[in-house]
């Protein structure tokens, strides 16, 4: 009888990719490996071209160094090297420099090839590692939640369109020919309206309108639309909010691709949070709104286990907060009469970025036209008071810093808001920079979009100030990623001696700050970090690859945060103990922090001219 190599089997079976493979793969690896002791003295005899091998580190630490002497990575327990030449057959480029002697497991080419052919996941692991695209592939496979899908994946392609000088009869004929229940009206390659079956019924037959009249009489002008690259969730939100059943889908150049209908979405799985938003938008009393709001925490808890991408949870919560706000504003107007002037309800910070958590507090404000009468002033003061109070009853706690529409400081005219921002931008004290980080993430929620747009245009003109950008860049660089020299984690410690990494403060926040800075400098209007990045890519503001890297990092870090919120004990929230990660995750995390650090430095170089 042979007792197995227990120590080897245990160690190998815990390593990626073996922790995802049959035990037979571990067994094969163990029975074919050679154990070597790699020291400063003998380092030259490993990782050379005479016989390429796969190396897995058991102890010690080793630097991979490029031929030009540049450090590629410092490797330690659980990390592999040597696989690129096994995969490609190319010569080995990098050299090994031993920092601490240690035990390394070595697998020869033919054994590697056996595993590679036997186990697809094994091959994939190394191919991915080799392609150095660990981060982006990590969650790609996981994005299988239906509401996270791109609209282009669920819609029927093929837009049916006609021009506005067509008659109503021609319109009806064309719809019937194509068997569609709605049609897009296009003028100069622009979408100008939508006509649905219901319009033909309500606006033509019921009113006995002459079918020879122009379709422009009955179409819904300036219709809502959505882009093919948006998520299904966004489409649902839009349809529920505006009570529409047909949503034109456009490509990046506003060319129509097709119509998304509520039936298309019904075919997808139903989602409770989305229905909740629908109910909130229809609530007729404050009591109803509150009752629905009480369902939020439980509902999200059930939902959070199903979604893989935490950014969706943030979006959902922000969507729900938006819905509550809108409905409360509506109900206030029911009681106190319609608003005397146009107004915009805006939100800041995490709600604006759509990164809300159950613990986020209110950050909102009212944007009003200049030169209001005292009576109008007090109307909006009462609205702010009412909405903020009811939101807090609904579970969205009041802002300790009083950034709320109920405060006179945040219920201001356009020029007063601009003066406020201008003060921060022109004299960027540390407190002003802090304010900017909150207030420059802003988003329109309810009221007059025109008013908001004219404000945001003036705001983005005003904020284009090099000194302001420089001080933001400097501020970003005061926060550092938890990676020490040679790619090792720098851990923080709780009073109870738990060691941890703060993923939010030392990762996500830095990325948010960097992306905000670029967005401001390019006049990008979105507040959500991922959307800002996408718009920056479109504006060709930065190197595309760098922006995608940042996006990957942001998602990876928020992903890990979600896990840390679910299953950590004794650690502050948003923190993880890196010991609990697999070797692949550790590697990815290091990579992510490394990329964040690079982006920080790039921002400093660009905006602060490296003067740190």
């Amino acid at each position, binding site marked *: *009888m042979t007792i197995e190599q227990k120590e080897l089997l245990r160690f190998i079976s815990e390593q990626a990719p073996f922790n995802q493979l049959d035990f037979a793969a571990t067994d094969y690896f163990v029975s074919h490996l050679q154990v070597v002791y790699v020291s400063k003295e003998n380092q030259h*005899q490993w990782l050379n071209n005479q016989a390429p091998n796969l190396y897995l580190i058991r102890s010690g630490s080793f630097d991979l160094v490029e031929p030009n002497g540049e450090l590629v990575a410092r490797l330690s327990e659980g990390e592999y090297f040597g696989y690129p030449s096994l995969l490609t057959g190319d010569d080995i480029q990098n050299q090994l420099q031993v920092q601490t002697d240690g035990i390394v497991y070595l697998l020869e080419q033919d054994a590697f090839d056996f595993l590679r052919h036997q186990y697809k996941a094994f091959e994939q692991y190394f191919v991915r590692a080799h392609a150095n695209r660990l981060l982006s592939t990590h969650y790609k496979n996981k994005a299988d939640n239906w509401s996270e899908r791109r609209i282009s994946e669920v819609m029927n392609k093929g837009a049916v369109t006609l021009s506005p000088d067509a008659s109503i009869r021609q319109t009806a004929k064309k719809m019937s020919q194509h068997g569609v229940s709605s049609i897009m009206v296009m003028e100069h390659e622009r979408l100008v309206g939508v006509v649905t079956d219901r319009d033909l019924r309500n606006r033509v037959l019921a009113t006995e309108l002459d079918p020879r009249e122009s379709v422009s009489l009955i179409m819904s002008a300036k219709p809502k639309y959505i882009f093919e690259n948006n998520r299904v969730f966004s489409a649902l939100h839009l349809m529920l909010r505006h009570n529409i059943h047909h949503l034109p889908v456009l490509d990046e150049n506003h060319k129509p691709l097709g119509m998304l209908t509520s039936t298309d979405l019904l075919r997808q799985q139903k989602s409770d949070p989305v229905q909740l938003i629908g109910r909130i938008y229809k609530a007729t009393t404050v009591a109803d709104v509150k009752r629905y709001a009480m369902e939020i925490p439980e509902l999200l808890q059930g939902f959070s286990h199903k979604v893989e991408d935490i950014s969706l949870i943030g979006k959902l919560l922000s969507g729900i907060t938006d819905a509550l706000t809108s409905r409360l504003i509506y109900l206030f107007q029911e009681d106190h009469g319609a608003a005397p002037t146009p107004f915009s309800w805006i939100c800041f910070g995490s709600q604006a970025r759509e990164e809300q958590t159950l613990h986020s507090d209110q950050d909102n404000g009212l944007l009003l036209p200049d030169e209001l009468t005292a009576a109008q002033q007090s109307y909006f003061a009462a609205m702010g008071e009412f909405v903020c109070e009811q939101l807090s009853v609904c579970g969205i706690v009041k802002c300790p810093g009083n950034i709320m529409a109920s405060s006179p400081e945040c219920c201001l005219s356009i020029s007063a808001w601009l003066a406020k921002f201008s003060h921060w931008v022109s004299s960027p004290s540390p407190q002003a920079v802090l304010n900017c980080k909150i207030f420059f993430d802003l988003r329109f929620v309810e009221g007059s979009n025109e008013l908001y747009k004219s404000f945001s245009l003036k705001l983005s003109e005003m904020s284009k100030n090099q000194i302001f950008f420089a001080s933001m860049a400097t501020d970003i660089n005061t926060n550092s990623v938890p990676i020490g020299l040679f790619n090792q984690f720098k851990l923080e410690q709780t009073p109870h001696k738990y060691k941890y990494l703060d993923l939010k403060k030392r990762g996500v926040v830095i990325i948010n700050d960097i992306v905000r800075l670029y967005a401001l400098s390019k006049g990008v209007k979105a507040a959500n970090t991922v959307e800002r990045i996408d718009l920056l890519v479109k504006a060709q503001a930065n190197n595309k690859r760098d922006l995608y890297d940042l996006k990957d990092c942001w998602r990876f870090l928020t992903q890990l945060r979600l896990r840390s919120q679910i299953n950590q004990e004794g650690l502050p929230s948003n923190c993880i103990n890196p010991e609990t990660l697999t070797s692949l995750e550790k590697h990815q995390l290091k990579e992510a922090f490394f990329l964040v650090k690079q982006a920080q430095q790039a921002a400093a170089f660009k905006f602060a001219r490296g003067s740190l």
Partner: protein
Amino acid sequence: MFNTLKRLLGFSPELQDTLQQNCFRAKYLVIDLELTGLNPKQDEIVSLAWLPIEDQRIFVGQSEHFINAHVNELKQSPIFHGIDSHALEGGVPLVLALQQLRPLLDKYVLVFHNAELDWLFLKNAFGQFNMPIAATVMVDTMKIEHKRLSLQGQEIGFDDLNLAACRARYSLPEYLTHNALTDALATAELFLAQLNKITSGKGIALRQLV
């Protein structure tokens, strides 16, 4: 010292050649025994494992491990090496293991952690089954460590030379299981670490290790 001299003088010309060669070029067989006690006259071999080192590589796939099916009295073995009477049922007669081991003795330099004790048991066992064995070259990781620590002028305590303590000195990973096979691997790793440290990677004549 006297023992070493006596052993060296008794070696055949072939073995003398082996002793002259660079320690990195020699082929080693690392052997570990689990015993019921420390007295070769009363105690027995419970299990026996070995694995080869060539060219500074430990070939795990060529390791062997045998449990002696005919242990008379297990004593503390279940506690120390996890081998109980149930495990013995999966064992083989010791003679089978010895028959496999004997031809290897001529091909390899043997490595033990505490060679004196293990070799005494092995020699007895071979004798018991009338299997004559020739003189062999042997290396002892415990002795190497003892010598290294003495040269550094360190005081050596009772537990400083056990396998785990020696490994810790080279920052080798801590192993939780203890059976002949794991200990043979642990000894082999320790030996590679020692060779690198004491020869600064250049290697020395094998005789200096013996």
